[in-house]
């Protein structure tokens, strides 16, 4: 149906263009297809109702994602007996996971002619493994990781969406990424990826080997 209302036309175009992205983020936030559908529909309804509050239409995307995250938190608060504050609050500080890195687990300082274990690991990791790792993250970390890594929002944009300081976004993202790698490592181990990454058929690394020559060592 054609409308003569410019607000309505702008809104329809903006929402339609972002529908897949909104659904993708909603799915990773809610981890459930039905809830993701409800979340998108509710977000669209709320966004239309508050369109007058959008002063710069160029900022539609961060604006509507802010509505999406707020709607998600509100829905969670209703369904789970948890307060919004608890969901949005910084998890405990100084988690051990902050230092975890898959690269450090796998990297060999010596060049191997058949490739590097960490790149081999990435070749074997499936979307399903990553999804499981992401879904297993604590909420406060998952939301930030989804907004930064999946949606590519800047730290200040995320801070605005979640009403937290930029430093909080930085620290949650850092810890979320480390925990994600730890989860992914565990999932990959369970799936047997590690055994294949460190294939016994592969040549044994010579512990006395010299570091690779300059040609390879330096870029």
């Amino acid at each position, binding site marked *: *149906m054609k*409308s003569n*209302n410019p607000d*309505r036309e702008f*809104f*329809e175009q903006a*929402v*339609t263009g972002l*529908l*897949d*992205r*909104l*659904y*993708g*983020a909603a*799915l*990773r936030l809610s981890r459930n*297809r039905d809830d993701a*559908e409800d979340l*998108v*529909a509710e977000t*669209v*309804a709320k966004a*239309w109702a508050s369109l007058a509050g959008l002063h710069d239409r160029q900022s539609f995307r961060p604006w509507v994602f802010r509505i999406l995250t707020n709607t998600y938190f509100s829905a969670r608060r209703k369904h789970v007996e948890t307060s919004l504050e608890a969901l949005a609050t910084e998890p405990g500080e100084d988690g051990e996971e902050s230092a975890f*890195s*898959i*690269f450090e687990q796998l*990297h060999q*300082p010596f060049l191997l002619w058949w490739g*590097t274990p*960490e*790149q081999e690991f*990435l070749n074997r*990791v499936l*979307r399903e493994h*990553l*999804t499981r790792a*992401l879904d297993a993250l604590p909420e406060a970390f998952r939301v930030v*990781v*989804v907004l*930064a*890594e*999946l*949606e*590519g929002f*800047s*730290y200040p944009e995320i801070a605005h969406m979640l009403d937290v300081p930029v430093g909080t976004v*930085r620290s949650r*993202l*850092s810890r979320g*990424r480390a925990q*994600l*790698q730890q989860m992914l490592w565990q999932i990959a181990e369970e799936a047997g990826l590690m055994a294949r990454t460190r294939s016994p058929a592969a040549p044994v690394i010579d512990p006395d080997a010299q570091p690779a020559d300059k040609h*390879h*060592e*330096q*870029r």
Partner: protein
Amino acid sequence: MSNANQISCDEALKRLFEYLDHELDAEHQGEVEQHLHDCRACYSRAEFEKRLKGKLSALGQDKAPETVGQRVRKLLERY
């Protein structure tokens, strides 16, 4: 090397994700970039994290099912 802007591996890795996220100011961005150019180990780490980031970003690219499109179209028809 006597470059005043040279940073250590620890510093480069501490800022690596902010570098990959383009969240550093130009000066710090340049310092990390220079370090990655000079240090093979940190360069490998950056390449690994960049690839992992790429795989992760693909998780948000689910296509919305037709039912979502229908619900949203119904909403829009009311406006």
